[in-house]
């Protein structure tokens, strides 16, 4: 299966793996501790501090590596939450139908009629500022999109002959959802997974950049942009490094997701080619 992977997908896979590796091995890789002040403020890049130091004199490279861990971990948990919730509700709505489908779908319409960022800001203005809140808000808001996709996919599958057959032989709803619909809905959902993860990375970074995400001294990349943004007007590019890392991670995952999308659609007889 490895002989026909296009070069763009390779680039995506390699660089995504590097990011994941940095996140997993953060304490081993980082040359300095996360919060220790090891030099002057905004020192330029040097052999001692590869990426220079930040606004308080902490090693930027170490913070970038720990930041990878925070960013990827939170985005991944939020993605898993939004996927489990969105797809289970979406499949149930499609299989059960009736008032449940109506109520869920109209509620999702309502939530999606408000821009996600605005609604998140409204809710975060009263909720306590901690990690759990953040993950819940990110995951729940995004599950609306997963709900729409999985409901649409499941509605199509629900009328297939094999599902009819399963219903006629008296299988329960749990069987229909998990044994008939889930395996057949998997490939469009997996392709969507990458895109949702990117969205969560960007969303978390935006919230942290606005000062409403991860609270200092912990740092994710968006928060590091915020910490170092005042240096920009003095010509100090420290804030650009975490911002570039976010962009690079997003592009890498995008390349992989694109490849999976093309692969799964071509398996189904070139649909959407």
């Amino acid at each position: 299966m490895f002989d026909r992977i296009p070069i763009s997908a390779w680039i995506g896979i390699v660089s995504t793996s590097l990011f994941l590796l940095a996140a997993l091995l953060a304490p081993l890789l980082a040359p300095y501790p996360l919060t220790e002040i090891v030099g002057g403020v905004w020192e330029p890049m040097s052999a001692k501090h590869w990426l220079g130091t930040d606004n308080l004199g902490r090693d930027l490279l170490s913070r970038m590596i720990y930041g990878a861990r925070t960013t990827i971990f939170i985005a991944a948990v939020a993605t898993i939450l939004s996927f489990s919730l969105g797809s289970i509700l979406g499949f149930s709505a499609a299989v059960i139908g009736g008032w449940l489908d109506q109520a869920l779908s109209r509620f999702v319409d309502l939530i999606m009629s408000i821009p996600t960022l605005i609604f998140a800001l409204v809710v975060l203005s009263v909720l306590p500022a901690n990690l759990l809140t953040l993950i819940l808000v990110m995951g729940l808001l995004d599950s609306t999109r997963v709900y729409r996709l999985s409901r649409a996919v499941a509605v199509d599958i629900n009328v297939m002959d094999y599902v009819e057959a399963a219903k006629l032989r008296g299988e329960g709803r749990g069987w229909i959802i998990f044994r008939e619909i889930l395996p057949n809905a998997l490939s469009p959902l997996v392709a969507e997974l990458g895109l949702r993860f990117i969205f969560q990375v960007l969303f978390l970074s935006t919230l942290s950049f606005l000062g409403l995400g991860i609270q200092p001294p912990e740092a994710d990349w968006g928060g590091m942009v915020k910490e170092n943004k005042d240096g920009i007007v003095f010509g100090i590019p420290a804030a650009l490094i975490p911002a570039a890392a976010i962009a690079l991670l997003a592009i890498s995952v995008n390349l992989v997701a694109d490849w999976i999308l093309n692969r799964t659609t071509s398996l189904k007889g070139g649909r959407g080619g």
Partner: protein
Amino acid sequence: MSSPVLKLVAQRLSLGILLLFAVSILIFVGTQILPGDVAQAILGQSATEQALANLRRDLGLNDPAYVRYLNWLGGVLTGDLGTSLANGTDIAEAIGRRLFNTLFLAAVAAIVAVPLSILLGLLAVRYRNRWPDKMISAVTLASISLPEFFIGYLLIFFVAVQLGWFPSVATVFDGMSFGQRLSAVALPAATLTLVVLAHMMRMTRAAILNVMQSAYIETAELKGVSAFDIIRKHAFPNAIAPIVNVVMLNLAYLVVGVVVVEVIFVYPGMGQYLVDHVAKRDVPVVQACGLIFAAIFIGLNMLADIIAILTNPRLRHPK
């Protein structure tokens, strides 16, 4: 204008208004979902009993929720958005000027982004699968992945700091000439343009390609019409409705993207105001700003629907 069209438009309008009411309830409920006491959350754990009681009275927390909602809604409908908890100023007054600033910024960005993205979308279709198309899709993929602040700070770093062409902080004040104002918002507007350009371009391209695969286009090709004439005479008129839809959706996105861009450039608009007061847990301001942003968003989406109905006769007879 025939009456079925009017009826459809009236339907969309009333649906939009209904949605807006539902959204106002959602925003109100969203600020009440805290499992504890809002006053406690605002003042923190160390607040005295007296301060808590005062704040509860000021917020009207002693009334039941639906009374508070109706009071708030009544105020909003009569232009009274309440007063800020943080500094006691009148919210409607503070929002007025900022709303103008925000809309000005979004409008400048839209005036540049809309024609540019349609033109590039058309180019991509004209040279489909050749290098202009491939370059455009590569750039699109990249720019969809870029956070707004990366583009914004790149522009500040290179254009404002290194080259010194525009100010890095978008300060606007009363009595500024139009030209000065335009120069102040140049970089924020450029950032916004770059953010939405890729989306609009890609969706324009998809809309036109969709039309290009119709039978009447094939007929035109077979009778020997030139490629540009096919796009101009056959594809474009049919693609207007989807393109208008794309433009409206992105304008709605623009109004939201403005939040981050205003913070980057310290621009005195609605977004900056909202973010500042979220951090201060200033609930009345957050509710008011949230509602206004949602209203603009819903309004633009509704407008997209109505324009689609007006420009595409096929949508007037829904089956």
